[in-house]
């Protein structure tokens, strides 16, 4: 099939970007969307032009690196699919496709379709962990965890941190991302001792990074390639409320001497 692509090109963070039109010829339906772009890039290089910059790594839908908005929808709008797993059999001959980067204040564009998502790392650094050092941990089976809790924690933990939820949200909110990590760790006994502190710190970091507020429209769940459920946002709200009620834990000095 032959396709017309309208692709966002932007030299760097300081330059304004614009759309360029390219023809993708002889596209095979077994190609992934990114392989189709690879072929376009090969042509551009052969013609002495600069290829289109876009991020990808695993190309199996798990690393969360690929990040394209296709015809206005992050990852292209097929249920549970990242753009690296989107195959060209989903498109038809003669179609015009627009390709854009994630757009959000907290994710500045670095070049063409590549954006900077370090804001997500900052949120995890603020508390998305259990404070245990290496070594000295109890036997893994010392503490049974109900299977239902473990399974639900895994549902939340499936988040790949791609940022599609932010890219699709009209407020560019990161609530689904934060909710997934807060829920995973609050559901497991290992995460419970720090649950209040974690919820408060991660939400604060999210606000500081410039993400917007959540109005629970559910657009995030719809585009999430791992189908992380909106119900985790309700859980985050509960965790956050609980933490506010309990207040920040008082700092007490250790028993020196």
């Amino acid at each position, binding site marked *: 099939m032959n396709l017309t692509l309208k692709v966002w090109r932007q030299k*760097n963070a300081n330059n304004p970007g614009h759309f360029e039109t390219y023809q993708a010829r002889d596209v095979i339906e*077994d190609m*992934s969307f*990114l*392989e*189709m772009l*690879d*072929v376009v890039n090969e042509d551009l*290089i*052969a013609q*002495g032009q*600069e*290829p289109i910059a876009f991020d*990808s*790594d*695993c*190309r*199996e*839908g*798990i*690393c*969360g*690196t690929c990040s394209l908005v296709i015809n206005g929808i992050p990852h292209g709008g097929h249920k*549970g*699919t990242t753009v690296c*797993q989107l*195959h060209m*059999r989903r498109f038809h001959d003669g179609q015009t496709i627009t390709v854009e980067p994630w757009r959000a204040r907290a994710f500045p564009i*670095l*070049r063409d379709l590549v954006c900077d*998502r*370090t804001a997500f*790392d900052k949120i*995890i*650094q*603020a508390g998305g*962990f*259990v*404070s*245990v*050092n*290496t*070594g000295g*941990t109890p036997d*893994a089976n010392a503490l*049974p*965890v*109900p*299977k239902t809790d*473990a*399974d639900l*924690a*895994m549902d939340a*933990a*499936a988040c*790949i*941190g791609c940022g599609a939820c932010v890219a699709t949200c009209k407020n560019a909110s990161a609530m689904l991302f934060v909710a997934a990590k807060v829920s995973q*760790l609050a559901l*497991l006994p*290992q995460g419970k001792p720090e649950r209040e502190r974690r919820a408060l710190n991660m939400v604060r970091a999210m606000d500081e990074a410039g993400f917007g507020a959540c109005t629970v429209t559910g657009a995030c769940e719809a585009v999430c390639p791992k189908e992380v459920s909106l119900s985790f946002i309700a859980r985050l709200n509960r965790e956050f409320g609980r933490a506010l009620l309990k207040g920040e834990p008082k700092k007490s000095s250790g028993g020196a001497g």
Partner: protein
Amino acid sequence: MKLDAQIPSGPIAQKWDRYKFESKLVNPANKRKFDIIVVGSGLAGASAAASLGELGYQVKCFCFQDSPRRAHSIAAQGGINAAKNYQNDGDSVYRLFYDTIKGGDFRAREANVYRLAQVSVNIIDQCVAQGVPFAREYGGLLANRSFGGAQVSRTFYARGQTGQQLLLGAYQALCRQISAGAVKMFPRTEMLDVVVVDGAAKGIVARDLVSGEISLHAADAVVLATGGYGNVFFLSTNAKGCNVTATWRAYKKGAAFANPCYTQIHPTCIPVSGEHQSKLTLMSESLRNDGRVWVPKKKGDQRAPQDIPEGERDYYLERKYPSFGNLAPRDISSRAAKEACDDGRGVGPGGLGVYLDFADSIKRVGEDKIRERYGNLFDMYEKITGANAYRTPMRIYPAVHYAMGGTWVDYNLMSSVPGLFVLGEANFSDHGANRLGASALMQGLADGYFVAPYTIGHYLASTKPAKVATSHAEFKKAEADVTARLKRLLSINGQRTVTSLHRELGKLLWEKCGMARNAAGLKEALKRIPELREEFWKNARVPGENQSLNQALEYAGRVADFMEFAELLCTDALHRNESCGGHFRTEYQTPDGEAQRDDQNFAYVAAWEYQGDGKPPLLNKEPLVYEEVHMSTRSYK
């Protein structure tokens, strides 16, 4: 070069404890005076950086992805082994050790493997404490499955996303240290050289992949945890960015490279669909627990699988290996698939595929049960191929998957350059000539959480390395070399794209140094690789500039290194006149087509030493001595 594996004395079960007791310690107050660089943020790198940060060292951690959480480890599906014996099915540290030595076809170092099996149990404890959501039984305890050629259930898993969950656990531990100020993270930063001063590793040269800026970093020890080199074959199951650059540059600075010819081909991957193919997708081998592998008995049989009656199918793994059947180890299953296809009985386009059929299991346990076990894999298969594997068998074919070879390291995981430690898939240490399923995750985390923090401490305490500033001449020289090379890449301005050259190299290696190798083919490859390399440097086209985000330039640098490394890989394969594990030389096989080792002449690690460009590398041998396990012929019949 003198290779000393530094194996502690004493009985195997006591070596590691003895080592830990005898090693020198760094006073807690002094730890912050030591700088450590960790290149890589996969399981090995992230766990090492976090653990070293916790201990109080000043750590810098580098990765080329936009976040440490995206390292290739994230893609591991099946699981992680540990000798917990939670299933009461006869597992033990000794059995895991034994299986790994045997699975590696007696080409791994006993002492390292024993330690790996020992610390495997701590890994699971650590991960659970971090909040890794492993699969559990209704009673709330951890679930296990059997995996990849093991007869006990020792594999822990988190659905089909074990690597993801383990990496996120390590990443979160790393994030905690970043926020504590103990680790400084450099994402989108690529290490382009190691700096060696007076024979010891003292730092690195790195390039900021967004601005193109070159930076110099000095340290008391440098850790490479940069993953495997499978992408030298162009097509592999590895992430697109995986490369050999870090360990290759280290090789050129004196760190011997061991056993590059030990590459693992995974039997269950989705076959190539065309020239455009950019990578291959693994279908977890856990599928082989319920899928039966077969091809038609008749050559060139074009009928649809459902139309081929039972009697005309060859379930070749069950036929050839009755006691392991469809669960035969990777190297053996891959080779059997290749044989069937070479025999003209492969299925699908080009005859490069075999069936993995779930019909019997669906009949036995029901479609729902199969969906529950493998739903995500069947979905993935359908996304890529458009076919429904509940109705028709999957088509699979072997693909390059893992690198057993890597930088030579001693028991300390230190390379032949003092102060340069190499962890995870990047080193050669534990898997011999073939890796068992679910053992790479185990090794990465063992190295990073439980081994390197001790051995690096011992190095720092016992050698008291001298501080070197980045103003030192060696740093300046390395920087100048890196800059000159980048300039040279950008100025070739030829006619061919880097991808096309890489693809050609990959095809050559796949044909001449893939699942089966022979002297004649390897000699051809060794003639062709230098020509291809020359063509690369004369005729590649690398667009754009240095001072910006330039993915074409990043890629060109990696392919340039593959062009050199490929020659070492084939040299090693040609010199090893035997078949073992993933290295199958057609000249050396038993009458029934199995690998024939030559323990008399080849029971050693081949550690290659760089002698300068254009000069043949020097072969150093580390003899492998088996005190515990009797060297036997590996049989899965």
